[in-house]
């Protein structure tokens, strides 16, 4: 049954470590720009993973994860800018503070279900960029001007380029966070989280402290997204309120749904999708206009929208779910209904996680 066996995971990890080192051999293929792009994908994958823990594994919907991302980014930026922290030391602070913010936000969220929670989190996403501009905070946040930072420097005199190092930095953090997430999900707490998602009342009756689990999950989810934000502050070397408009939260959600709700591998795919499709949608829309000579002025978002609809139609369980269903049908197992492929997709990465 394992569609994602250990050996694949090991191959992926080895590739992840080795490929950037091929830069001297294949300078065009493994360019600094591409490594930077992969780094942003990994950052997005962490943020989507954070959202997935909340939405995919605990059944709470958030339209406001851009807010936690912004808080993480600003904590990192302020620590680096005002307190001269090294970039790597900002991550635990961003994680802890975002956990607290997420936990506190999780408390009122207990009273809100479904759409209402979605709206409350949406309000958070709208409010945070405004709060960052607030005049009492301006001394710290730099107001609308934002904060200009330095890119992470290569440590220990390693013979790496800035972007190679950034890649490894993100890679190490991402692997660690995925390992942690898969362990959480395999544990008693993870099963409790999923039980709450699947049947809230039943979970309650079985003696699970649903309030505690829901708020703590909110906190963990916020911490993950906050770490992603802190990484992005280092990678982009600039933070400003304009970087965190509400569309960011929507994009995380798109990444989540497209990658696969309730799937760890899906979060990774979602992160890649988040960066790649945005760019290719634009390339495609200029291609249609200039090279095919069609006089439609298709905006990139139109193309993006069409792609999304097609994808949702072909793979309603997201790419991870879709690929898994494909593999199963190739193996001529029993026909998969979409409902049944979901928990399967969930189990798959948990198994992969055992390889650590």
């Amino acid at each position, binding site marked *: 049954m394992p569609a994602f066996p250990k050996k694949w995971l090991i191959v992926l990890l080895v590739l992840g470590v080795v490929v950037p080192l091929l830069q001297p051999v294949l300078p065009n293929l493994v360019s*600094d*720009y591409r490594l*930077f792009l992969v780094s942003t994908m990994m950052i997005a994958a962490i943020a989507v993973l954070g959202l997935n823990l909340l939405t995919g594994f605990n059944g709470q919907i958030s339209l406001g994860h851009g807010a936690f991302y912004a808080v993480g980014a600003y904590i990192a930026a302020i620590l680096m800018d005002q307190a001269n922290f090294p970039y790597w030391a900002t991550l635990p602070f961003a994680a802890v503070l975002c956990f607290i913010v997420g936990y506190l936000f999780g408390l009122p969220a207990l009273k809100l279900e479904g759409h209402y929670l979605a709206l409350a989190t949406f309000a958070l996403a709208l409010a945070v960029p405004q709060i960052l501009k607030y005049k009492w905070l301006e001394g710290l946040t730099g107001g*609308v001007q934002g904060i*200009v930072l330095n890119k992470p420097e290569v440590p220990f005199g390693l013979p790496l380029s800035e972007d190679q190092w950034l890649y490894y930095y993100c890679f190490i953090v991402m692997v660690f966070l995925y390992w942690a997430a898969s362990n959480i999900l395999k544990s008693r707490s993870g099963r409790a989280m999923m039980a709450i998602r699947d049947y809230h009342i039943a979970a309650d009756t079985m003696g699970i402290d649903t309030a505690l689990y829901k708020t703590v999950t909110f906190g963990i989810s916020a911490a993950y997204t906050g770490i992603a934000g802190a990484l992005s502050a280092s990678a982009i070397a600039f933070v400003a309120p304009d970087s965190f408009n509400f569309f960011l939260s929507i994009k995380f959600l798109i990444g989540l749904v497209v990658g696969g709700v309730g799937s760890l591998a899906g979060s990774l795919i979602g992160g890649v999708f988040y960066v790649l499709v945005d760019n290719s949608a634009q390339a495609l829309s200029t291609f249609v206009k200039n090279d095919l000579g069609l006089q439609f002025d298709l905006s990139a978002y139109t193309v993006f929208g069409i792609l999304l609809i097609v994808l949702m139609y072909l793979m309603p369980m997201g790419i991870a779910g879709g690929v898994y269903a494909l593999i199963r049908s190739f193996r001529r197992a029993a026909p998969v209904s979409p409902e049944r492929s979901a928990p399967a997709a969930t189990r798959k990465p948990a198994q992969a996680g055992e390889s650590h």
Partner: protein
Amino acid sequence: MNKTSRRTFVAGVSAAALLTGRSVAFAQKKYDDGASDTEIKIGHTNPYSGPASAYGVIGKTIQAYWKSVNEAGGINGRKVNFITYDDGYSPPKTVELVRQLVEQDKVLCTFNTLGTPTNTAIHKYMNQKKVPMLFVATGASKWGKPKEFPWTMGYQPDYHTEAVIYAKHLLANVKDAKIAVLMQNDDYGKDYWEGFKEGLGKEGNRVVKHVSYEVTDPTVDSQVIQLKDSGANVFFNIATPKFAAQAMRKAGDIGWKPVIYLNNVSSSVASTMKPAGFDNVQGVITAQYLMDPTDKQWADHPDMKMWTEWMKKSNPGASLDDASNVFAYSVSFLMHETLKKCGDNLTRENLMKQAANHQKLKVPLLLPGITVNTSPTDYYPVQAVQLSRFKGETWELFGDVMHAEST
């Protein structure tokens, strides 16, 4: 424009190159990434989507400009390959796209990248990579610092300087001024506000009321009422067209008749003055450097005629009322001239050298008397403005062209 003469010129140059022998001609050609015998690659980012997508027209007009340049034979025989991406006004996206332009597409330079936060995000990177970042589209005052950032150059007069000019004019002309300020709460608003305070200097306490609004606010009515209640007799309006019009209309409606200073950003007759009601805006003062396409006094000016004709032919469907299209044309012309001056030496270093070497260059659609001047220590191409006062249905220029000294 004299298309034929340029074509003849190019033909002449090629003939001369052939006659003098190929080896000689080639020896003088120098290229960096993005330039070759046939092509010059220029990169650009612009918010075609997202909250600032109103600026998207600038990118479209610039595209139309290079297309018409290419149709007329290009620059010194080279076609311009203009690569433009949508950054949605999001700084992280700009960083990603500009890195793509520089490292993958290998452009010679970027041109007119739009937005203050977005340009701030790539400022350091471009200067580390030593890639020219020319004529950025933002009015912030930090783009003309050749010492720290020798690869970055602005274009328009900065907001800060403009506000200093208003403050000085106000102190000289209004007796017992009590000033009320309405400000958009973002970097653009603050740049004006800082400049205004600097211009007032010791008289800073003349500001009796200072209120701000957010771009997302529906109206500024309540702000205007507060301003009126302060008893001010001068109103400095730092707002984008929609809000500027609302504010002046409201002031008229509630019978508040201060001396109004209006920022240049909102000086369009069609999008600010008319919606505000011509009755409410008589005597309003602003500073201008470009011709407003909706101002009737320019209708017969040769520059405006040429532009209108060009817009109809090469940029059909674009608005003839939108000052952004005038801006885009004029800044593209400056880039065009700069590239022409580089001749066959299309290195990044020479491009920067030529950009910092314009003397009294006449750029179409700048107000009469305003020219482009740059030098290795002066990275502000357009630094002059002229005050004008609204009369009837049009702006009336008065006083001299003022050269701001913000360096």
